C-alpha cells in the first residue's frame, strides 16, 4: 500500500517537475508546478506530517501558484518562449552535466550514509483518529511556540518587511513619473 502511494506520488512529482522545465508557455509551467506540489503533499501525508501537508496545499498550491498566475496575467507575459534555439553555446550540455553530477553526488551520499541514520529524537506523535486529537499538529505547535518562539516572531517581522518592500517596489512614484514625462 505504501509502495502504491509512493509510486503514484513520485510519478506526479516527476511529471510535474519535467513539465515545469519543458513547457514553453509560462501558464502551463505554473500548472505543472501545482502537480508537483500536490505530489509532495501526498508524500508528507505518507510520512505522518499532516499539518505540513495541509500548509503545503494551502500556501504553495493555493497562494504562491495563484500569485504566479496573477503576475503572468498582470504583465501579459504569457507568450510562448522559443525553446528550440540555444542562445549560449554549450549551455544545455553543461547544465545537464551539472545537474546529473549533483544528483549523483546526493544519491551517493544518501546510499553510503544511510547506515548513519539512527533514532535520536524524542519521537513524532502519530495522529490517533479514535481519540479525535491531532497529535502531530499539537506536537509541532509545542515545538514552534517553545523552542523556536524567537524565530517565529522574527518570521512575522520578515513577512511585514516583505509586504512593505513589495508595495514600495511595485508602486509608481508620482513625482518621479511626472518629471520623467516632461
Amino acid at each position, binding site marked *: 500500500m*505504501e509502495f502504491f502511494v*509512493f509510486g503514484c506520488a*513520485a510519478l506526479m*512529482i*516527476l511529471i510535474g*517537475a*519535467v513539465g*515545469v*522545465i519543458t513547457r514553453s508557455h*509560462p501558464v502551463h*509551467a*505554473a500548472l505543472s*508546478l501545482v502537480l508537483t*506540489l500536490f505530489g*509532495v503533499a501526498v*508524500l*508528507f501525508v505518507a510520512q505522518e*506530517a499532516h499539518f*505540513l501537508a495541509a*500548509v503545503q496545499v494551502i*500556501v*504553495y498550491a493555493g497562494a*504562491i501558484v495563484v*500569485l*504566479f498566475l496573477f503576475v503572468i496575467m498582470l*504583465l501579459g*507575459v504569457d507568450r510562448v*518562449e522559443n525553446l528550440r534555439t540555444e*542562445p549560449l553555446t554549450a*549551455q544545455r550540455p553543461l*547544465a545537464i552535466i*551539472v*545537474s546529473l553530477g*549533483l*544528483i549523483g553526488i*546526493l*544519491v551517493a551520499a*544518501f*546510499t553510503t550514509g*544511510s547506515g548513519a*541514520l*539512527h533514532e*535520536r*529524537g*524524542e*519521537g*513524532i506523535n502519530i495522529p490517533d483518529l479514535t481519540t479525535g486529537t491531532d497529535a502531530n499538529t499539537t506536537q*509541532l505547535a509545542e*515545538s514552534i511556540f517553545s*523552542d523556536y518562539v524567537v*524565530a517565529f516572531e522574527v*518570521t512575522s517581522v*520578515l*513577512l511585514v*518587511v*516583505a509586504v512593505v518592500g*513589495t508595495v514600495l*517596489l*511595485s508602486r*509608481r512614484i508620482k513625482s518621479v513619473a511626472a518629471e520623467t514625462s516632461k
Partner: protein
Amino acid sequence: MIAALLVPTATWYLVLSAILFGIGTFGVLVRRNPLVMFMCIELMLNAVNLSFVTLARELNDINGQTIVFFVMVVAAAEVVVGLGIIVAIMRNRSSVTADDLIELNG
C-alpha cells in the same frame, strides 16, 4: 520476500528529493523567463522540504518538521519580493527574458 523489498524506505524518499533538486537546478540554469526560473527555485525548495520531512520521520525528531514550516514562510516572502521586483522591472519593457536584464550591472 518481494513484499519486504517493496516497502519504501527513507532512501527512496531521499533519492526522489535528489532527483527533484536536480531537475530544479537544470531549470534554473537553462530557462530564460524569470517567472519560470522562480518556479524552478520552488521545485528545489520542495525537494529540500521533502528530505527534511523524511529525515524527521527517520530520526524520530519533530524539529525537522518545524524547520520545514519556517522554510515555507521564507519561501512565501521570497516569492512576494521576487515577483515585486519582476513587476517593477517589466513594467517599462515588453521583453521578458533574463538576458535582457544585463543593463542592471553598473
